[in-house]
């Protein structure tokens, strides 16, 4: 794992977005699913607020469908391959702050890359989210970052699937922060971005979180990120 820390006093934590591209049909993915769960729960790096997302891709849906997978997420991973100049895509893959990538289950390398990402300063971002009349009213605000894209992911906190076919047949897979919807809500312009949107509620039950992030579309770099757990 990343290594536990017992911290005697609170330190400021820089938010870092950790995206896991995964699939229920992929035999190598369960250890990465467990790693992302551990990162979310343990928060093992004292200076980092690790905000995680599990993004299920469709290219393993050859004979049985991963109910969390979507073409939009597959395309997101393909976009990273292009931006990061990677020969292709694979699962499980971790993308750290849109800048660095490694094999999904590789905790030591993930730690090294997170520490690298922490060297970049990040402006503070505020997010509030409330469930109102079947919608998720979300407000996102931050200063600066003009020209970058603002995205909001709605993710199921914990999801479980008993897999019946394929490499993971017979296993019960547990996923953390499973992306069920990803919306582009605007482009940062001027000094301050402050936008409220009513996002449709995806077909999930209760436990979910809303993650907002600002991404440089030319480099893929995550410039700011924040989350609200409902």
């Amino acid at each position, binding site marked *: *794992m990343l290594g536990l820390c017992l911290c005697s006093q609170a330190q400021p934590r820089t938010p870092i977005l950790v995206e896991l591209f995964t*699939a229920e*049909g*992929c*035999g*190598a*993915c369960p*250890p990465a699913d*467990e*790693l992302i769960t*551990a990162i979310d729960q*343990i928060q093992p790096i004292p200076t980092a607020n690790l905000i995680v997302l599990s993004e299920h*891709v469709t*290219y*393993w849906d*050859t*004979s*049985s469908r991963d109910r969390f997978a979507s073409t939009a997420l597959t395309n997101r991973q393909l976009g990273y391959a292009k931006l990061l100049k*990677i*020969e*292709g*895509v*694979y*699962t*499980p*893959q971790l993308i750290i702050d849109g800048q660095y990538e490694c*094999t*999904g*289950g*590789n*905790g*030591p*390398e993930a730690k090294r890359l997170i520490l690298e990402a922490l060297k970049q300063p990040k402006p503070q971002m505020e997010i509030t989210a409330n469930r109102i009349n079947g919608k998720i009213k979300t407000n996102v605000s931050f200063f600066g970052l003009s020209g970058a894209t603002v995205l909001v992911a709605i993710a199921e906190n914990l999801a479980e699937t008993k897999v019946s*076919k*394929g*490499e*993971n*047949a017979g296993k019960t897979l547990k996923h953390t922060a499973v992306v069920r919807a990803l919306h582009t809500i605007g482009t940062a312009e001027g000094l301050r971005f402050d936008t409220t949107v009513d996002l449709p509620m995806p077909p999930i039950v209760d436990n979910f979180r809303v993650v907002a992030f600002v991404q440089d579309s030319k480099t893929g770099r995550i410039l700011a990120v924040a989350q609200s757990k409902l």
Partner: protein
Amino acid sequence: MFYSLLLLAYFAPNLNPVQWTLTGTPKQLVLHASISEHYKLYSLTKPKGGPIPLEIKFRETNYVPAIHPTQPNPAHQLSGEVDFTIPLKLIKPIPAEGLQLHVDLRYQSCSDQICLPPTRRELEVTLHSASH
């Protein structure tokens, strides 16, 4: 689980772990797969569900309407150096200038650390009649 992840030796992902070559005669082709260390190829016998089995298709169906490739053993996953044998039964004579056959492959491969999406490769081989 947390600590067992520390014990695994991780290697850089190889996104092109299977190298293919196609050779042969008008009677039989040999499709050779050289599979990188740590990786496995899902074979012709892989049952439905999950990763796809290896698919081999000829474009020149006017010469080769059907094929029945075989693999060295019935395993669902293969590793190392593997020869697939494809007996040929041409239904038309080979032209004097030779016959170029195009073979389309579709396959999936994994290591114990990563899995790759279905991959396509196109191979070709030129056959000449025995009299040439």
